[in-house]
């Protein structure tokens, strides 16, 4: 049976070129970058070269780039680190209602357990936050605004530049989670004007377990870990040299391919959305057709649960997702779609198809052949679908 992977927003396979770049640092180049001897110097040089390379791709200073274990850690350090740094004077946070849990949960933790005020910045039906509403929520004691660059479930690309500008006019720091946008669209830290930015490698054909947090020069954040002076004491721990080298190579390749991939994936996504809409009635597109990461296609099938579609497709060797999966594999109703004001039935019927480098029209045609009978069968059984 054919198998089709359409869950690239969850993760991607590592590019063989990235593996090649990493291998020397997993074998003979194993040194600890903090060691004084030749082994250590070699590792340190690789680390710093990678830092410069990544900084130049995303347009920040190398000294502003801190390596972490990935997006979740970067988001946690950004939110909690800023909150702890400013807590004596500023105890209010604003985060987007459709943020990833890696931002939402630390913010909720600070709110529930540490007395921070928390406001969720609403999003409209396509997933966009409104600058006017942000201006209304900002307070004198606001410490941080966090709004993601591109949404993981819908691909909606926020106008970060405008939002960051409003936060800054009020003297408030701005963080963006760029995990789903880095390497897929132009991510230029200086142009976005953010104070903090999270990114990761494994969504763009890099290794899992490595990411970075950009902290603009002059912005102070309290560290969450202690135990060494690595990463300027902001993130101590023996550096993941092979991972960082892999991350640099990942971004280099992504940057080279970016425009061509964007065009190709836009065409494939349009083909897919239009074909599904032609073949299946009562399908709704969630998000923005115009301003989104094109490979993210979030569709709701009226009258049925996304979970049942995902399971049925898995049995046909088609890998997609509904909502966002946590470690236990439990499907939760999508907080993103709920925040976009979609009724519960639409949120529950949502399925995310996310495409990538090995997606072809032929593979999509296989999905387009398998999907309609599944939807029809589920609707026949549905107590709520009646057409």
């Amino acid at each position, binding site marked *: 049976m054919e198998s089709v992977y359409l869950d690239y927003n969850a993760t991607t396979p590592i590019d063989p070129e990235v593996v090649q770049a990493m291998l020397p640092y997993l074998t003979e180049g194993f040194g600890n970058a903090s060691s004084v001897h030749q082994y250590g110097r070699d590792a340190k040089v690789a680390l710093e070269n990678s830092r410069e390379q990544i900084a130049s791709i995303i347009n920040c200073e190398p000294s502003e780039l801190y390596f972490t274990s990935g997006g979740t850690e970067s988001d946690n350090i950004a939110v909690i680190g800023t909150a702890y740094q400013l807590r004596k004077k500023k105890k209010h946070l604003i985060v987007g209602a459709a943020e990833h849990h890696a931002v939402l949960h630390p913010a909720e933790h600070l709110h529930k357990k540490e007395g921070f005020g928390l406001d969720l910045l609403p999003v409209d039906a396509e997933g966009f936050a409104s600058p006017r509403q942000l201006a209304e929520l900002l307070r004198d004691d606001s410490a941080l605004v966090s709004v993601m660059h591109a949404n993981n479930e819908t691909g909606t690309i926020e106008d970060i530049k405008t939002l960051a500008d409003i936060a800054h006019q009020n003297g408030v720091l701005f963080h963006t989670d760029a995990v789903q946008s880095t390497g897929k669209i132009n991510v230029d830290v200086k142009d976005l004007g953010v104070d903090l930015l999270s990114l990761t490698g494994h969504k763009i054909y890099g290794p899992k377990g490595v990411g970075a947090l950009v902290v603009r020069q002059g912005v102070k954040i309290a560290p969450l870990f202690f135990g060494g002076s690595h990463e300027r004491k902001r993130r101590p721990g023996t550096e993941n040299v092979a991972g960082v080298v892999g991350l640099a190579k990942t971004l280099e390749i992504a940057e080279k391919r970016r425009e061509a991939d964007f065009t190709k994936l836009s065409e494939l996504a349009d083909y897919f959305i239009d074909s599904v809409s032609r073949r299946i009635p009562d399908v709704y597109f969630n998000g923005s057709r115009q301003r989104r990461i094109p490979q993210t296609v979030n569709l709701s099938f009226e009258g*049925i*649960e996304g*979970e*049942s579609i995902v*399971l*049925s497709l*898995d*049995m046909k060797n088609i890998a997609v997702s509904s909502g966002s999966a946590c*470690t*236990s*594999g*439990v*499907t*939760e109703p999508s907080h993103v779609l709920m925040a976009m004001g979609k009724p519960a039935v639409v949120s529950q019927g949502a399925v995310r198809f996310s495409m990538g480098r090995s997606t072809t029209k032929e593979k999509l045609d296989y999905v387009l052949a398998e999907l309609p009978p599944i939807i029809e*069968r*589920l609707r026949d*059984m549905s107590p709520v679908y009646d057409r």
Partner: protein
Amino acid sequence: MPEKVLVAMSGGVDSSVAALLLKEQGYDVVGAHMKLWDYVDVGGDIYKDGRCCTIDSITDCRMVCDAIGAPFYVLNMSARFSEKVIENFVNEYKSGRTPNPCVICNSDIKWVEFLRKAEEIGCDYIATGHYATIEKMLDGRYGIRKGVDGTRDQAYVLWGISQRALSKTLMPLGKRRKADVREIARRYNLRTAEKTESREICFVADDDYRRFLREYEEKRGRSFEPGDIVHTDGTVLGRHHGTAFYTVGQRKGMGIAHPTPLYVQKIDTEKNVVIVGDNDTLFRNELKAESVNWVAMAPAEKLFEAEVKIRYLHQPAPATVTPLTDGTVHIIFRDKQRAITPGQSVVFFDGDLLLGGGVIA
């Protein structure tokens, strides 16, 4: 094409072996764990082992499925479980009754929602690791028989399942003994082979239902109203913290010094009193059952004899069952039974065959 079956897996040894046996019998097996509740919502000791609905149990299911070559999914049914089972559990206690949440879970979640999910993903059957068998009767009905392992009568909690659902259910452990099931698990090196089992209410993780009720109501800004504990002779003996914390037949926890042992006789929520008395007066010979479901037997039209069981650990007792015109049944025992408790399930058997059941009114 082999028939496809969705196996309900708790993470315990029984459902693991059920999945394994079905696979060996040639079924196309898919494993699924029903995520029914979260420690965040139900409280209790999150470090207690062996409970279903924990990450560790889900991991166990996943690894067992991988070992036997079956796909595995987690199905989130927590919203429905909370609405149908937990709310009912709390409301029953608040109305002076003693609920059987496992019965409601079986009738309304496993054999409705789980079955629906199975059908949606193209399965022909669902299967569970219950020690009971399902049998097609001569008249075409589906009956449930107690498992051959007499130490675990799980038929008692299965009385509420509809005929249609039974026709789509497999219970491969009914003819096996627990010890043999463990042996099979060991032989196949299943990681759940030595897991201890929990027989208590799954979402009351510390087995302290009073703690659960208190926290549940507190979270919703409600509290329990204290009242009097009254002897059957009319004298007020003390105070209670809320009638929900008492159950018929209960002896301990009254907090009253009294020359003779006191047992809860009746809970009167209208007057907000708990009535206590001697053990002797707990014995009665009749009850009325509502929400009746007929299993091996077509809905009865006239009275019949059966062995009737009134709680999980009760030895079935001979009785006559009389169907009434409003769908309820009236049961008269040959001998008086101790602590007939409103809210508990009453199940009618003919030997090992489950005829039907209901809820004690």
